[in-house]
C-alpha cells in the first residue's frame, strides 16, 4: 500500500541483508514497437498503470529500502507521461538511473532531457542486422533508429550500451552485429537468448534448441575476447550457456544461481511486484503496490522469497544431478519456468549440452501447450532426447 504507515527504518535488520538493491521498473506497457518476440506483449498501456504521484512514492520507498540502481523499461519507458519526473526523483534520492529502450524515438532532445534528469546510461536493444532486426521488431527502419539513438545517448553525455536477444533468426549475425555495435561506441553488450514468453512463445521455430549452445558459446567467447582488446565488455546474460569452458570469459564471476527477490526486484506498470522483471506474472507476482506495502510483499510473499536460502531441493531433471547443482541451482528461473512449467531444470546450458554430447545425445524442445495470449504468459515445452547427429551438431 502506498501510504505513510510506519516502516522499519533499516531493511537489513529484518531480512538478513536481502534488499531490493537492483530494481527494474516497467513504467508503462505502452510501446512504439511491436516486437514479434516481446515477452510482455507490449503495445498498449496497461488498464490501470500507476500515476506519477504513486511512482514518486515508490521511489521514496525504494530509496528507503536500499535501492542503488534502477533500470526503467517498458513497453517503452519514455512513453510514460512525466517519466523524467520519476527519473529525476530517483536520481535525487541517490539511486543510479539506467534505461533499456528499443530506441525508436529516443531523439537528441529526449536524450538530453534524460541526461539532465539524472539518467546515467541507456542500453539499446538491437536484435540482429538490419533486415532481421526490423522483422523481429516489426517496424521498418527501427534498426537505423537504434544506431541513431546510440549516438544521441553518447552526444547527451550518457554511457551507451546494448543488448541483444539471440535466436535462430539472428544467430548467424553475432559477429557482424558485435562489430557494428563496437564501431558505434557501445561500452558493454549483453547477449541473451530469446526466452519463450509472450509473443516469443508463439514462435517455436525461432527459439534456440539446447544444443545450439555448442556452437553459439564458442563464437560468443571468441567475440568477447576480441572485444575486450578494444575496451568493450561482452557478457552472457543469466539465461544462457552456463559453465562451459568459456564461463570465465563471459561472466564477471561464474553463475551462482537466480537471485530474484534476494537483491533484485521487478515492478510492473500497474504496481505488481516480482522478484525479477523477467519472471512470468502469474506465478511470480507477490502483490500489488496499490494494495500492499513494498515491505510486506518483499518480506512475506513466497513469490519474492523463493531464492533466499535456497538449496537444491527444487531442482529436477538434468540439473538435479549436475556437478554444478549447488552453485547454479538450476539456472534462470524465468527461462526454466516458461519453458518447462516450473523452475529448477534449465536446458539452455553449455555444460549440459557438452555432457550430453559426450553421451552421444542432445535435447530438443517441443511445444506441447500454447500460451494463452496475455502479457508475460507462457506455454509449455517438453524435452526430448535424441541421438546426436554426427558430424554437424548445429543443424536442426
Amino acid at each position: 500500500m502506498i501510504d505513510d504507515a510506519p516502516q522499519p527504518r533499516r531493511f537489513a535488520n529484518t531480512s538478513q541483508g536481502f534488499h531490493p538493491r537492483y530494481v527494474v521498473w516497467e513504467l508503462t506497457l505502452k510501446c512504439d514497437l511491436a516486437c514479434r518476440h516481446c515477452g510482455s506483449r507490449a503495445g498498449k498501456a496497461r488498464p490501470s498503470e500507476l500515476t506519477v504521484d504513486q511512482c514518486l512514492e515508490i521511489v521514496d520507498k525504494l530509496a528507503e529500502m536500499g535501492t542503488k540502481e534502477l533500470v526503467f523499461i517498458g513497453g517503452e519507458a519514455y512513453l510514460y507521461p512525466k517519466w523524467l519526473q520519476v527519473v529525476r526523483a530517483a536520481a535525487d534520492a541517490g539511486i543510479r538511473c539506467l534505461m533499456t529502450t528499443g530506441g525508436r524515438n529516443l531523439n537528441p532532445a529526449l536524450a538530453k532531457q534524460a541526461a539532465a534528469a539524472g539518467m546515467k546510461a541507456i542500453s539499446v536493444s538491437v536484435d540482429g542486422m538490419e533486415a532481421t532486426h526490423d522483422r523481429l521488431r516489426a517496424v521498418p527502419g527501427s534498426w537505423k533508429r537504434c544506431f541513431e539513438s546510440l549516438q544521441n545517448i553518447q552526444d547527451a553525455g550518457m554511457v551507451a550500451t546494448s543488448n541483444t536477444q539471440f535466436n535462430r533468426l539472428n544467430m548467424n549475425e553475432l559477429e557482424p552485429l558485435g562489430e557494428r555495435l563496437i564501431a558505434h561506441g557501445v561500452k558493454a553488450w549483453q547477449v541473451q537468448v530469446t526466452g519463450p514468453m509472450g509473443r516469443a512463445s508463439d514462435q517455436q521455430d525461432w527459439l534456440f534448441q539446447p544444443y545450439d549452445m555448442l556452437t553459439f558459446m564458442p563464437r560468443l567467447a571468441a567475440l568477447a575476447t576480441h572485444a575486450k582488446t578494444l575496451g568493450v565488455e561482452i557478457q552472457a546474460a543469466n539465461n544462457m550457456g552456463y559453465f562451459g569452458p568459456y564461463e570465465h570469459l563471459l561472466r564477471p564471476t561464474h553463475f551462482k544461481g537466480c537471485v530474484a527477490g534476494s537483491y533484485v526486484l521487478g515492478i510492473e506498470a500497474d504496481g505488481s511486484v516480482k522478484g525479477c522483471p523477467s519472471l512470468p506474472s502469474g506465478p511470480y507476482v507477490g502483490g500489488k503496490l496499490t494494495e500492499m506495502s513494498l515491505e510486506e510483499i518483499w518480506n512475506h510473499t513466497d513469490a519474492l522469497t523463493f531464492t533466499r536460502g535456497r538449496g537444491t531441493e527444487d531442482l529436477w531433471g538434468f540439473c538435479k544431478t549436475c556437478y554444478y547443482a549447488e552453485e547454479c541451482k538450476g539456472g534462470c528461473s524465468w527461462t526454466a519456468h516458461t519453458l518447462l512449467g516450473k523452475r529448477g531444470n534449465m536446458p539452455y546450458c553449455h555444460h549440459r549440452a557438452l555432457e550430453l554430447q559426450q553421451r552421444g545425445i542432445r535435447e530438443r524442445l517441443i511445444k506441447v501447450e500454447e500460451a494463452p495470449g496475455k502479457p508475460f504468459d507462457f506455454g509449455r515445452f517438453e524435452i526430448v532426447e535424441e541421438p546426436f547427429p554426427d558430424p554437424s551438431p548445429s543443424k536442426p
Partner: protein
Amino acid sequence: MEICIECQRHIKTSLEVCPFCHVAPRAAPFVTMKRTAIAAMTPFFLAACYGGPMTVVPCEENCDMDGDGYSEQEDCDDNDFWVNPGENEVCGDEIDNNCNDEIDEEECVEPEEE
C-alpha cells in the same frame, strides 16, 4: 570454485582430479577464478527480459564487483559473492564472512555438509 588450467572449466576444488579433462592435481595446475578486470563494470546483470534486459554499464562509484548486493565500500571482500555484511559467519573457515572484523567468532554457524 577454481578453473582447470587444462580445460578451462570450473571445478570445485584444486584437490580433485578435474572431472572433465581428468587432469590430476599438480603443484599449481588450477587457478582461482579472478574477476575479469571489468574495472568498474557493474557485475550484476539480470536475466534477459523481453527485449529489454538489465543493462551492463560501467560503474563509476559504489561499485559492487561481486554482485552480492554490497558495494565495495560496505563489503570487506568485494571479489567474493559469499562474503558481505549480510552473510552468517561460518565456523572454522578462517574467513571474516560477515565483515565484522572478526573471524570465526562465537556466534558462527557450522558449515553446511557437502
